[in-house]
């Protein structure tokens, strides 16, 4: 059993996370190792499963030196290959006593024992016993589970089948029953609608929606609600958040000048595709290779921007080729993590230490991305915009209107300037030719000078025409500018032209996309160094351990993308459903969602993972259908309450005997604060916006004068757009998006930590303070009495009707705050002045401030911050 004390996500909050993590694992270890009678994962007589029981031990402790990486292999012994291990007599099937592996493992001699003390690794007695039993029973090896195509598992038998709502529940219930546990009761309807809303649309339900659902007598009330939320246009916005983290999406390049980009057009594509439930195969193929599809549409090309969302280094002195390889490495890493759940990045420098992936596999994979006309650094368009070809220009209607307007003005100025220019030309021509044939001093090109040497009378009509045209050309290019500054209309035309150029550079969207417009030779790089290509050229092919490209399939990105969706692909579907599970349960069925390789967590619920994966494939890769399947399960509908016994027995909820309870992502928390108060502007898509941010977050970057880093705070309702649309500067994340992926490299694992800085954000950021004020105003208008107002505010945030205890607590809170503000009305006014939205002068400031403080407190309740 892989025990990783340092990667316990849900218990990683707080001040003593690691010792606590250890404590929890101490419990988990006892449970998993079968020490606690009530929950054996593997009872004494359960047959040994190589993938579950043995490979993790070998992989963690042996493969580093005795694995497939030939460069690091010690004593010419490999234990990842059964034949090799047998040939070396490290393992003698059926004869533990003759197996040198066991002799070394059991040795007490520091020079003999394996793993050696210097490796900082040590086997437990339990692990040694497992190895012994495994060898005694024949030492069978099996391919790592994730490299074999999933097969539809049989439905396990369960005792309490009445609880089961769909296929998911059979597997979960069987696991719980096997461990002597029982599912939790179903959560109440208010909790369910709030949970579903958080998970599917990232916005809270209104009290009216809650009431309607609670009162809905229909047998399928829950399913109707699910379908309504799945059809909401906000579904795509919510589901885009984790996808943007994986795609390391940001609105700027990172690094020194940190130029802004137009990749938000790709972001809008993602939201729309998710809302349309574009099948995941198409969703993937268009993002990986939309540009290579026959007659690719503009949308498909934009989709391919997925692999252009990486960092771009334009620092002075940067070595472009080095940066270009950094882009390539990033694409391999991001693509393999996102779709394959493999750490292919490990093979940049050497064969993988653990997975059967080689350095050749890596560079064959990289070859698919090594065909762009990029040079490695972004190109300067304006002091704000830096993007790198290949790109597509997509003028908006506004752009076209502005350009047409410019052109009209330029035409008008030209018309006015024309006589002046003509006069200027005539004068210049006359002056030039007045003293006969001009000499070199006139600055004319040599060819023209030669032509002029021919006496005028001898020139043919064509020659005369050519001379006139050349003179005019020379005048327009070199001489005419002298008129700028001397004649107003000429000046105006020149200024307008310059402004049009600047406008085009700064304002026409240029989306970076993929294109195989410059194939190059790909070679393996020795130690991953771009300066040392070695060996024969390599062409794209999938890693050898995975199924090959189908016969006749293109050996390019399009082939790669289609290959992911061969029906027998062992990884694609599993990786996605595992991340979907993470979305709805806080952790994946394989907790290491970024790594399904041999070092990843062995899934306790492998049959469930496989069943879901095959459902995904067989339902035409519909993401909405799998989301629906998960949220309509009895497993999902459980309460998230946990008693001390269940907490001790399954502290991390790996058996799903309760629903998960976790703090919502900061982006969602902000949306919830805006929506609860009614401030939220629900417009979708378009350019990023600049909501409140403390001074000196961006400005502190402006140590160089190379560009203006003044934060251009938005006005009006742009302040209240969903967090998805907040401008994401890659060098410094939005100040109030705590705990977010850094959008520098691909991230697929959710993080929910808890720090004082998070508390300060939700207590003091104007977003929350203003939201509280606006919610208080609405509550004052909604009810005449304090209790009614408190209930109104409470329901808009946490949805449920406050209990008697809640009301007493809220009343006390309100009373104390009111007393303080009554004694200091100026403070009340100052508090109410936070935020750009208008204040309601009709409300008593002391009452309003007191209730606003209570609303701020409600927004900060643990219950408000968490989805339960």
């Amino acid at each position, binding site marked *: 059993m892989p025990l990783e004390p340092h990667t316990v996500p849900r*218990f*990683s*909050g*707080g*001040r*003593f*996370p*690691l*010792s*606590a993590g250890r*404590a929890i694992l101490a419990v988990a270890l006892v449970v998993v190792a079968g020490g606690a009678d009530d929950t054996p994962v593997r009872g004494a007589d359960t047959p040994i499963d190589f993938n579950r029981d043995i490979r993790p031990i070998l992989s963690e402790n042996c493969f580093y030196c005795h694995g497939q990486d030939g460069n690091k292999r010690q004593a010419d012994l490999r234990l990842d290959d059964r034949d090799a291990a047998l040939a070396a007599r490290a393992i003698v099937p059926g004869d533990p006593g003759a197996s040198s592996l066991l002799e070394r493992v059991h040795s007490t001699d520091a020079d003999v024992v394996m793993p050696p003390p210097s490796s900082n690794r040590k086997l437990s007695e339990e692990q040694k016993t497992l190895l012994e039993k495994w060898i005694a029973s024949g030492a069978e090896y099996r391919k790592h589970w994730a490299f074999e195509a999933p097969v539809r598992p049989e439905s396990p038998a369960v005792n309490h089948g009445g609880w089961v709502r769909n296929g998911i529940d059979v597997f979960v219930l069987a696991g719980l029953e096997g461990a002597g546990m029982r599912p939790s009761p179903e959560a109440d309807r208010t909790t369910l609608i709030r949970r579903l809303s958080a998970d599917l649309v990232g916005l809270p339900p209104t009290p009216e929606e809650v009431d309607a659902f609670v009162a809905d007598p229909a047998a399928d009330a829950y399913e109707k609600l699910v379908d309504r939320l799945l059809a909401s246009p906000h579904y795509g916005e919510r589901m885009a958040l984790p996808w943007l983290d994986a795609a390391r999406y940001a609105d700027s390049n990172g*690094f020194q000048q940190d130029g802004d980009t137009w990749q938000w057009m790709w972001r809008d594509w993602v939201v729309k595709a998710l809302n349309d439930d574009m099948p995941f195969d198409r969703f993937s193929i268009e993002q990986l290779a939309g540009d290579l599809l026959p007659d690719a549409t503009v949308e498909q090309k934009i989709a391919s921007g997925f692999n252009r969302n990486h960092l771009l280094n334009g*620092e002075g002195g*940067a*070595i472009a080729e080095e940066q270009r390889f950094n882009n390539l*490495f990033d694409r391999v890493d991001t693509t393999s993590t996102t779709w394959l759940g493999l*750490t292919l*990045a*490990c093979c940049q420098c050497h064969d993988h230490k653990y997975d059967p992936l080689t350095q050749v596999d890596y560079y064959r994979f990289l070859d698919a991305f090594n065909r762009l006309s990029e040079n490695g650094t972004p190109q300067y368009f304006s002091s704000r915009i830096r993007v790198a070809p290949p790109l597509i220009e997509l003028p908006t209607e506004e752009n076209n209107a502005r350009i047409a307007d410019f052109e009209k003005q330029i035409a008008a100025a030209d018309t006015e300037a024309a006589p002046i220019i003509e006069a200027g030309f005539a004068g210049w021509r006359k002056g030039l030719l007045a003293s006969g044939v001009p000499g070199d001093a006139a600055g004319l090109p040599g060819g023209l000078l030669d032509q002029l040497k021919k006496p005028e009378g001898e020139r043919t009509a064509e020659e005369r025409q050519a001379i006139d045209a050349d003179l005019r050309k020379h005048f327009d290019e070199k001489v005419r500018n002298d008129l700028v500054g001397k004649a107003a209309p000429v000046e105006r035309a020149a200024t307008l032209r310059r402004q049009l150029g600047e406008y085009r550079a700064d304002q026409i969207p240029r989306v970076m996309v993929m294109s195989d417009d410059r194939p190059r030779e790909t070679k393996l790089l020795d130690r991953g160094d771009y300066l040392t290509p070695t060996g024969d050229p390599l062409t794209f092919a999938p890693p050898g351990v995975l199924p090959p490209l189908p016969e006749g399939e293109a050996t390019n990105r399009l082939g790669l993308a289609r290959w992911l969706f061969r029906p027998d692909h062992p990884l694609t579907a599993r990786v996605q459903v595992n991340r979907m599970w993470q979305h709805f349960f806080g952790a994946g069925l394989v907790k290491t969602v*970024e790594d399904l390789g041999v070092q*990843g967590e062995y899934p306790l619920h492998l049959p469930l993972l496989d069943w879901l994966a095959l459902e995904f494939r067989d339902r035409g890769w519909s993401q909405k259908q799998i989301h629906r399947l998960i949220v309509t399960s009895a497993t999902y509908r459980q309460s998230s309450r946990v*008693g*001390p016994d269940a*907490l001790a027995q399954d502290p991390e909820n790996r058996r799903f005997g309760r629903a998960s309870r*976790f*703090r919502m992502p900061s982006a969602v928390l902000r949306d919830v604060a805006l929506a609860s108060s009614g401030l939220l502007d629900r417009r979708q898509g378009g350019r990023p916006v600049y909501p409140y941010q*403390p*001074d000196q977050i961006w400005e502190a*970057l402006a*140590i*160089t004068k190379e560009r203006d880093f003044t934060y251009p705070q938005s006005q009006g309702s742009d302040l209240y757009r969903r967090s998805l649309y907040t401008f994401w500067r890659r*060098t410094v*994340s939005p*100040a*109030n998006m705590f*705990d977010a992926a*850094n959008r520098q490299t691909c991230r697929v694992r959710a*993080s929910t930590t*808890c720090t*004082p*800085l*998070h*508390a300060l954000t939700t*207590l*003091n*950021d104007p977003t929350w303070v203003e939201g509280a004020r606006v919610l208080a105003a609405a509550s004052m208008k909604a009810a005449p009495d304090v209790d009614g107002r408190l209930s109104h505010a409470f329901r808009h945030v946490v949805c449920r009707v406050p209990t008697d*205890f*809640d009301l007493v*607590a809220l009343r*006390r809170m309100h*009373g*104390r*705050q009111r007393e*303080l503000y009554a004694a200091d009305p100026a*403070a009340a006014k100052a508090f109410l002045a936070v935020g750009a939205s208008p204040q309601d002068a009709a409300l008593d400031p002391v009452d309003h401030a007191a209730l606003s*403080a209570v609303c701020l*407190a409600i927004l*900060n309740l643990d*219950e408000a911050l968490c989805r*339960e």
Partner: protein
Amino acid sequence: MSDPHPLPGLPGDADLSSAFAENVVRVSRRRLFGSAGMGIGGVALASMLGRETGAAGPVIAGLPDLPHHPPKAKRVVMLWQGGGPSHVDLFDPKPVMRDHVGKDIPESVRGTTRLSTMSSGYAKWPTQPAIKPFKRYGNSGIELSEMLPNVGGIADEICVVRSMNTEAVNHAPGVTLFMTGAQVPGRPSMGAWLTYGLGCDTDELPAFVVMTSSDKGKTCGQLFFDYYWGSGFLPSRFQGVRFRNTGDPVPYLANPPGVSRAARRALLDDVAAMNAAHLADYGDPEIDTRISQYEMAFRMQTSVPDLTDFSSEPKRVLDRYGPDVHVKGSFAANCLIARRLLERGTRFVQLMHAGWDQHNNLFTQLEEQCRDTEGPSAALVLDLKERGLLDDTLVAWGGEFGRTPFGQGDPTNPKGRDHFGRAYSWWLAGGGVRGGHVHGSTDDFAWNITADPVHVHDMQATMLHLLGIDHARLLFRYQGRQFRLTDVHGHVVKGILA
């Protein structure tokens, strides 16, 4: 504070009702089981029941198996000099270069050194000797530029490393390599690793603080990105907290306008009561983590502003840091805040000063940079020493690379130097460092290392070693492998150790 609005079952602010407290104890005890006596709930519990203190070890625990060996230093202040200070002009005297002024640095010296594209295409490599003379300082007689009189004054405290080297040719990759062990952003920074491993001696201040400053003219500054103090794949609570130079040092630190400390206190008490009730209902241990984090946030609201209030500092101390100490955001002021943080229990302070990137203004700008930074740097060392803190505080001074021994720009009249990572200099002082010592050497042109090279990963390994950490054993599993600060490299440099 008398409470005119008592809750039934909640007698007052000072302690929560016994029912809730009992539940908290129940939940927390469960999580304490098996640990060394502290768990997630430990402090929450302590803070709710009247804080327990006195136990040995950090206030906020690190990893149970750390330190690996008895540490020489318990805390670190990194005086980062961004842009690449010129080793040729400041730390590594090369009299031979005087005889070669303007002449090409021999090809036998240059070899195939990888340079930035600003100079890699040069046809001429005019030797540019140090722009000012060197002097011997202290009993140890270490030679440093006369532009460093105050650092010279602490020569017997410092170890000058003249054999630093890096592969990076540009700023961001160079800084990222030093801070995180890799040139491409995304891995945890040194301060994050240390606070993850060692915990922290304060729960009122961040464990890892970053402060930035730049040269006054902003002539050649560099940007400081948040991945220089990021937590990478470590949990985000380990990321550095950047203090800003204007407004609140920490974003969102101050209460909103119109919210007094008393009003906030009352509000938080009521929130805690409701959260405790919810904990009793839901049993989720994370709720009591939340309660404790809100308490710490409240404490930070006073402890952080206290840091920047120098009114209790004697004039003698202020004078030592120089007149800039009164200028918010200056390197001098940041040095003094650093000392105040270190003595209050912060584990890692990372000052980042920009302004050493002298491509075309070496002759004017270098001396100004020295004036802005070398006095306060030395003052910090002396101040720590006076307070008995230097013995177990590691002070590290340096940047991402050095600068080319040849002049940049017009070869007949160079105005600056380009980036140079093949050899450059750092200095260290404090806990476990061999003072009055020079480690490593370079050839006559300060180009190639001739003895005891110290790669960036070696410096990281050495710094960790001084803090009681075996760099090869401070690990975090991510993407199926064990990551560490030094990647797969790094050796402890024994010659630097006292």
